[in-house]
């Protein structure tokens, strides 16, 4: 059974069809990449999955459950975490606090228990802290633990965002351009993290990416989009050499 399935999803903004009946399935444990030129609708698909936008048509199914109309704040609790293209960290909080916010969907203590800092809250906080510490050592972020995000270099922030997503203990991880703004070495490092996340943590990944070397390094399957439509889907090499994909990137005569 597939972990995630999009059935004929579409979204219209006014007259523009940003995503036009796109269907795909993601299997448990694979890395699925979405590529395409700017404005192809890649990030829009992420925003549809994380329910920031409403789908106009179609169905989203995660783990056998229809999430097409699930409110956005419940998505993390179901096991879908994401990162953002332009980094949406909590800039005036420390790295540790950012990771602990990632634990939010796992906190169960009530309001009064928190206000009074009862033993139940203390126990839970300690558990959150342990989980956050696991992520810190997994990603090697120890030296930045108490640094404000605003004082961290861009490359580190990218990793922190990955860490924050991991703190939610997701089954499906959505990575929106994990390599954007990173240099070659950092991009390579990001590739290794993604492979580790897949192999060691067993998390399924959907990734939007422009860097083809990263795409071929980590993806099991690739979907190419243009103007909100699927151009090709399959093995990375297969998709990259697909004539439609080449045309979308390099340009060429259109058939119409």
């Amino acid at each position, binding site marked *: 059974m597939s972990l995630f399935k999009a059935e004929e999803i579409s979204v219209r903004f006014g007259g523009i069809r940003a995503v036009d009946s796109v269907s795909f399935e993601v299997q448990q444990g694979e890395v699925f990449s979405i590529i395409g030129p700017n404005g192809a609708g890649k990030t829009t698909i992420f925003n549809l999955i*994380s329910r*920031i936008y409403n789908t106009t048509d179609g169905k989203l199914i995660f783990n056998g459950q229809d999430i097409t109309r699930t409110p956005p704040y419940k*998505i993390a609790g179901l096991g879908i975490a994401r990162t953002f293209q332009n*980094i949406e960290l*909590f800039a005036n909080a420390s790295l540790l606090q950012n990771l602990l916010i990632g634990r939010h969907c796992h906190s169960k203590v009530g309001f009064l228990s*928190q206000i*009074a800092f009862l033993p139940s809250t*203390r126990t839970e906080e300690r558990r959150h*802290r342990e989980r956050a510490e696991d992520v810190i050592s997994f990603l090697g972020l120890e030296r930045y633990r108490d640094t404000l995000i605003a*004082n961290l270099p861009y490359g580190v922030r990218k990793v922190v965002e990955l860490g924050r997503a991991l703190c939610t203990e997701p089954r499906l991880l959505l990575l929106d351009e994990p390599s954007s703004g990173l240099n070659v070495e950092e991009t390579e490092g990001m590739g290794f993290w993604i492979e580790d996340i897949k192999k060691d943590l067993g998390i399924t990944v959907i990734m939007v990416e422009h860097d083809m070397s990263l795409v071929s390094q980590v993806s099991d399957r690739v979907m190419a989009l243009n103007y909100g439509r699927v151009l090709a889907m399959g093995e990375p090499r297969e998709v990259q050499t697909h004539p439609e994909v080449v045309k979308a990137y390099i340009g060429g005569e259109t058939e119409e």
Partner: protein
Amino acid sequence: MRYLFRTDYAQDMAAWRHGGDIFWYGLLAVVMLVLPFLLGEFYIGELGGVFIFAIAGVGLMLLVGYTGLISLGHAAFLGIGAYTNSVLLAQGVPFLITLPVAGLFTAACGAAIGLPTLRMSGLYLAIATLAFGSIVGTIFQKWNSVTGGFDGFAVPTPYVFGIPIEGATGVYYVSLAVLVFVLWMSLNLLRTPLGRAMVAIRDSEVSAQSMGIHLARYKAMSFAISAGMTGLAGALFAHYVRYLAPDAFDVLLSVQFVTIVFVGGLGSIHGAIFGALFVRLLPQFIAIIRDDLPFGLGRTPGLEPSLFGIVLVLVILFQPGGIFGLWLKTKHWFQAFPLKRKASFRRQKSYAKSERLR
């Protein structure tokens, strides 16, 4: 310099960072407790006023400094707390019940305001809360049967365990107790998921949401907590002024609260205390120097509000960390002496400049 060696996660959760904290705050508590025996009635009264404003300041700080929502209507919450407390007291309800009821009722009002204003932020929220403030002000004026209208009414003397809370000293101790309670609550709040959710909403709503934070619920909650604390301050304020009249709760008071938050230092609980000291003591300072000012400046009407305005603008321009930020810098200067560098407190802005990174 002090280096902290941490061997346990509980250390990060603890209310005190190290023994020095316990010593200094303990000393402060002792000083505060014996102060009424050392100082005159006038100063104790003024300090009581500082405590009351600090309580409201902490409340507003949670909303503005931590959740990132502005409110220009907090004078209304202070008023709701004051009237709820005093009206109930006049009905013969004991003070130990009217005080929490005033807090809870104001919190409920805060949540009620919080819900419809959730979609607003920034300037729009400021205007909406400003409007709320003036609506509530009008209600205080017109609802004669309850509030006594423009004439107002004298606030009855409260009793705690049979002891009357009278005069400056009584208000001082009760306010101190409530301030400590409010500080304890805020401290707990800020080290639990609730406080972190507030910070998350302040810094990035979209990612807060995708981390599983229910924006509407947490915004309403932080409005309620903030209003509730201000309501408690209001109940005490009624006993501080001893005679309730609607004109006490005008926009200028709301602006004073905002000044507390900004001048004290946005995003720090200490800041709320420093800000309250500033806001309460500046008028006294003006009163002292008023006669010595040149060009008849001392007799100019509106000297006080304009000074508040000027200080607010200057702080925002030149000292965004407020008084607390200044204190941190001073502390750092002494700790690092003589190695202080100018860049120590400068935020690094950007590493790569492109349209992608704002």
